[in-house]
Structure formats: structure tokens, C-alpha cells
């Protein structure tokens, strides 16, 4: 059963995610953190399969946290969850090692799909982004630097 951990400073978002996951017997929410520093510690301790990581948090942001988690626990998949429909933030997220980018605007209907794709070793990007842009971002990330 894949284990999920959420890092988001908005308690109501964490509660919403918990509520969605509680309806699916094949997912377990193993922990939650309200800031990046606590999140990183918890990820290291609990070793979840997937982390839902908010981008904008006070202190360390989710992109930096993603970088740190991918260095310390490279097997951990990370889905960024964010308000920002920005190609630049999307690009930064994937460059930092994120496996998915989920928008809060469609998180309710896309959450489980995002988690399934990422746990299956795929990359997930919200359907609100133009498919050509998505293709370009994924190509750029995979290109040798």
C-alpha cells in the first residue's frame, strides 16, 4: 500500500487531502507537516513512497525542500501542489527533482491520478497546462546539460 506524506502550511488543504485519501483503501496518509524543515525530517524518518509538497511556504519553499529530499532520499517521489499556474515554477520544480506538479485549483479531481502516475514512475503535470508546454518542459529536463 503506497504511503503518502503531505507538507503544506495550510491546515485546510492537509485536511482536504486526508479526506480524499481516506476514501481510498489503497493509499495511506502516513504523516503531515506544516513547514518544509519539519517535512524533510519527517520524510527521512517515515520514508513515504510519495510526498505532496506545497511550493509556497514560509521559511524554506517547496522547490528547495524537493532538492534536499531528492538528495537525501532519492527513492522518494515528490508531487508539488501549488496555486501557481506558472511555467517557470513548473520548470524549477522539475529541475529540482519533482515528479509531478498538481494545481490546487483541480487538486480534488486530479490528486489520486497524480499519485498513481508518479508511484508508477511516470511524470504528472496538471491538465491546465498547455500540452505543448508540458512536452517542452519534460524534454528540457531530460536533455543532457
Amino acid at each position, binding site marked *: 500500500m503506497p504511503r503518502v506524506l503531505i507538507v503544506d502550511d495550510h491546515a485546510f488543504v492537509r*485536511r482536504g*487531502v486526508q*479526506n480524499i485519501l481516506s476514501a481510498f483503501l489503497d493509499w495511506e496518509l502516513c504523516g503531515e507537516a506544516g513547514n518544509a524543515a519539519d517535512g524533510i525530517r519527517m520524510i527521512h524518518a517515515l520514508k513515504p513512497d510519495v510526498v505532496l509538497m506545497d511550493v509556497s511556504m514560509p521559511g524554506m519553499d517547496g522547490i528547495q525542500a524537493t532538492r534536499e529530499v531528492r538528495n537525501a532520499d532519492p527513492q522518494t517521489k515528490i508531487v508539488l501542489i501549488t496555486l501557481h499556474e506558472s511555467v517557470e515554477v513548473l520548470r524549477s520544480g522539475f529541475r529540482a527533482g519533482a515528479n509531478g506538479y498538481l494545481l*490546487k485549483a483541480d*487538486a*480534488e479531481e486530479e490528486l489520486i491520478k497524480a499519485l498513481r502516475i508518479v508511484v508508477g514512475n511516470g511524470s504528472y503535470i496538471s491538465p491546465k497546462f498547455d500540452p505543448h508546454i508540458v512536452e517542452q518542459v519534460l524534454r528540457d529536463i531530460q536533455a543532457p546539460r
Partner: protein
Amino acid sequence: MAAGSRPSPGANHGALRILIVDDHDILRRGLREILCAKPGWEVCAEARTGKEAVTLAEQLQPQVVVMDVSMPDLNGLEAARRIHKALPKTGILILTMHFSDQLVREVIECGARGYILKSDADRDLVAAVDCIANRRTFFTSRASEMLLAGQAAPTCHVEPTVPLRSRLTSREREIVQLLAEGKSSKEVAAALGISVKTAETHRANIMRKLEIHSVSELVRYAIKNQIIEA
């Protein structure tokens, strides 16, 4: 419960009835989860926009409305103003991402009884709704200090940003938001069901009243006054 939904028959009529308003489904789900866990509390409906909130509030007359400040088309403060005017007994709690002194003033002025941050804990939401349902206010400690110092009391001397905004009509404030969101006069007219000429007249009046001369100034004004988010 889907947004814009009505209460089911056989709902608990003795319950504290709460309307929740936020344009993010996942956030409404979280709010609902927390509020419905409290015995005797019931989320009677959900709204995704400020306009939907005003319509549902008028129809259902909830005791409490929990409303996000930033929503497209009609923001939470403007919706709160309209709900308060129609239903002065309904307690309104504003949800916001950021604290600001300006916001405390705006919240009081629009008739809401308090606000909490989205980063506040679940228990703060419960405490806030409890206070507001019992006709008390709920503000964070910093906001409370401001109130005690008399800086945000409705009867006190107003500061420069307030008089400018207070010169705008409710319709004009609605149009400020649409223009600041990047809509053209034609799109504003279509959204509000008015003629393009009327939309342009409103736009000219707004610019004159606010003493601004460009759309970028209008956007800055809208961000500063919590009409849209940066």
C-alpha cells in the same frame, strides 16, 4: 457536497448552519471535514464564487459564512459586504493567506466579524466559528491589539486609503476586480450583462474617483486593497 448545492431534506434543523465559500474544491473539502466533525454543526451549502455565495446566503440564511477573501469575479470582501447588507445577523468569517493591518480594517468595514489565516490550525477555525456564531468577533492577537488601540474601530478617523475606496459604488468595486483581472470593457460588459458603453462609463468614473490613469495603477490599487491577490 458539490459547490452551489442545496441542503438535503431531513437536515438537522437545530444545527448551526454554515455556508463555506472558496474557489478551491480541495480547500472546501478540508473546511467541511473540520466543521462537520463538530457535533451540532452542519455545512448547509458550498459556493465557489463570491456571487454564488451571495445568492446562496440569501436563499438559505446560514448563521455563519466562512469565506475566502480571494476569488475570481467577486472577491470575498465585496461578497461579505453584500451578504451583511442583506442578512445583518449572519456572522461572516474571512479566510486569507496573508495578514495585514489594511485587511483588518477592510474586514471590519465590510461587516465581517473576524478572519483567520489559511495557515492557522484547524482548532483556530473551530474557535473562530464558535465566537462568530455567538455574535462575538475573532481576530488574531496582533489584530486584536490594533482594535484595542482604536486604530481599526469603525467610528475612528479613517485613513487616506479608505475614503478613496468608499467613494466607489458596489458595482464599481466589482468592475475594479474584473478590470484588474485583465478583462476588457467588452468582457466586463458580457460578465455583468450590461452594455459596453455602460461598462466604459463605469471604468471612466472609477479612474476619476480613484485618481488613477492606467490599468497598471488599477492593478496596484486592487492588490493593495485586497481586491485581487498578487
